[in-house]
């Protein structure tokens, strides 16, 4: 065990910091769930990609830097420190990108990865259906093979970023006789294809952060299928592993949030009547630090050839509950003024930021697999408790 950064890790940090200081937009962008904000964020992805900072862990030939996981953590720390924009293409770069590298053919990688890295093509995720939420194997939407194409019919829902995105990666039932997790295939669909209808769904903050997607005789080439026909479930599970694993929510996000929370606490401290707030602030700080330490420990293990298994479910529960605790504590500190929306006359920027974060935090224990499903996974796969 050696918890010091090496000289090369330190110089990597300086390199990242300098680039971000020169390139991060000085004014914060509009929400990527508005048309204008989406375009601003797409432009930011292009800026990142122009110097190969889009996805530092990717190999150089895909526009990355071949960084190891410790370097990735350093990058993320600097990224959040700099106040750089959120990643509009996270479905693509964190989920589909690694999946393409593992399961895609050379031609598929050449077609999709570059455009993804540059922000030219932004991706949405299409797994859930009205009848297939936590029970994803209940998928009914069909893709029927016809010559070199698939004809797709059905409906997806809760597709994050789908309102303004260019592409969606989905799982469809390609074997009409199949049930459950058999006979599913992983297929990529352009959202401007004929027969695709996207119906935006407004989230708690009133913005269309996700959408329903209807497929009505949509024709896509078989080239768009990732992996073999019928392998969709296994590929989706590996993608879900990336999602819940390390990459989706780096600890820096929560450490920066607790830094702001502590600053807020310091300004309010002398007026606090609720003594339990001191404890709440301390615990938020400790848990954000614990998440960072745990991620460094996991990164060390993975770099030594280890694997991340059901621990990724522990991560998902821990960060999503931490995010709620941080924002609940902030709302308690803000008191009655906390309900103010950003456009209110009496608006001070922080109020709106905390409220926005508070609303978004509510979704954490639900998306990427509900925390109840994660607890089942921990109990059965990590602890070995009986399924039935």
């Amino acid at each position, binding site marked *: *065990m050696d*918890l010091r950064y090496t000289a090369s890790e330190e110089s990597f940090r300086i390199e990242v910091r300098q680039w971000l200081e020169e390139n991060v937009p000085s004014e914060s962008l509009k929400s990527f769930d508005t048309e204008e904000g989406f375009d601003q964020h797409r432009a930011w992805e292009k800026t990142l990609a122009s110097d190969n900072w889009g996805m530092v862990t990717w190999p150089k030939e895909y526009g990355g830097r071949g960084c190891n996981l410790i370097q990735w953590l350093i990058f993320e720390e600097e990224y*959040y420190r700099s106040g750089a924009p959120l990643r509009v293409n996270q479905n693509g770069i964190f989920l589909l990108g690694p999946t393409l590298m593992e399961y895609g053919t050379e031609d598929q990688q050449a077609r999709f990865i570059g455009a993804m890295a540059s922000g030219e093509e932004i991706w949405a995720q299409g797994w859930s259906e009205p009848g297939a939420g936590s029970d994803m194997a209940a998928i009914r939407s069909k893709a029927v093979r016809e010559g070199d194409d698939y004809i797709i019919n059905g409906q997806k829902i809760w597709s994050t970023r789908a309102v303004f995105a260019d592409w969606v990666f989905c799982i469809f039932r390609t074997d009409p006789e199949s049930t459950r997790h058999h006979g599913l295939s992983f297929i990529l669909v352009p959202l401007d294809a004929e027969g695709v209808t996207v119906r935006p769904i407004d989230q708690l903050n009133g913005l269309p952060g996700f959408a329903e997607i209807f497929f009505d005789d949509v024709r896509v080439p078989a080239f768009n299928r990732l992996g073999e026909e019928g392998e969709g479930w296994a590929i989706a599970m590996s993608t879900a592993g990336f999602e819940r694993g390390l990459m989706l929510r780096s600890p820096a996000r929560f450490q920066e949030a607790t830094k702001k929370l502590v600053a807020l*606490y310091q300004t309010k401290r002398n007026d606090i009547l609720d003594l339990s707030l001191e404890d709440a602030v301390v615990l938020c700080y400790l848990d954000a630090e614990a998440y960072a330490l745990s991620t*460094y420990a996991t*990164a060390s293990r993975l770099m030594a050839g280890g694997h991340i298994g059901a621990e990724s479910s522990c991560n998902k529960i821990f960060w999503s509950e931490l995010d709620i605790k941080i924002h609940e504590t902030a709302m308690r500190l803000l008191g009655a003024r906390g309900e103010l929306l950003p456009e209110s006359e009496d608006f001070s920027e922080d109020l709106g930021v905390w409220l926005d974060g508070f609303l978004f935090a509510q979704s954490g224990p639900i998306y990427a697999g509900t925390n109840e499903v*994660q607890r*089942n996974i921990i109990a059965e796969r990590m*602890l*070995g408790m009986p399924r039935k």
Partner: protein
Amino acid sequence: MNFLSSEDQIAYRDSVATMLAAEVTAESIRSRWNSPKGVDEKVIQQLNEMGLNAMLVPESCGGLGLSEQDFILLAQECGRAALPEPLVDNVLVANAMLADIACSDLDSAQQCKDLLSEVVTGKVMLACGHWINPFINMADINEWLLLSHGDEVHLVENSAVELLPQRSADPSRRIFTVNWQPSGETRIANGEIGAGLWRRALNRGALGVAAQLIGLSESILHRAVEFTTDREQFGRPVGSNQAVKHLLADCAVSLEFAKPVVARAAYTIGANSSDADYAVSHAKVAASRAAQLSARHGMQVHGAMGYTWECDLHIWMKRCWAIDKTWGDAGFHKNRIHERLLDPSTLMGAEHTFTSITSETFNSQKGAV
């Protein structure tokens, strides 16, 4: 940057774990409860033969010169076994404190060095009575005691003190209050030097508790999983019910996020980092939360059996409850964190998790005095 224990550390831990699994069973713990001293001399001797008493003593003083990082892996195993013998406090706190003084240029260094040479071989045993703890566990089996008078450190022979036995909720603990008279003869460090020594002792003691709580919690969780897999109701294992699964999954999550915190705390003490106070307090708070949850949920899923004297579970639960408040309770440790948060010189933010550790002169050797 690397968070992994070395192969040597793992091998040492495994050898101690194997010995403890064979020698320290629930049955043998129960038989200690009816013995006069509450200890198994053979186990003390075996652990000594494995080098534990010498671990944290520098090689220049005849020790093995290992670090807190090495030792907490063993402390976790002591917790897992619910080892009644007070080994963790003796080795991690008392022996290391005596070594700190023996390696200093204090007048008492030679006296401490002489005693240390007998401690590392296991010929005599030494305990530490810190002002933060009202009791010393198993004080009576030690030939010597390190005691606090204000911030002064005194080295006192057992025969020169009056030990008043008290009864603990944990039948494996034999706790004592100590009546004694400080004198110039017994003083081995003045208050100015002693303050640093006691602070370091507290950090080591709290680290030892945190590590033991991890092992205790893992053992409770393991027992709870076994019980709920075997026990059937409504024609199926009670552990197949989601309500039961989720109680234990929450314990697992809590533990996963306490373990790296405890490892970091051990590292900061070994490196003499200025982060040690904070890192140790975090470890104590995190391990304590995991242990309280594991004891609570572990008992719940055992049903009425868990509430009995007959079921072995209480050996582990009561240890959690008892040692959780030693070496500074949650209030003490959270307060140290709170002070850090209010200190304007504290480096906050994601990029600073390892800043102090990286920038300070690394010193794995002693140098407390």
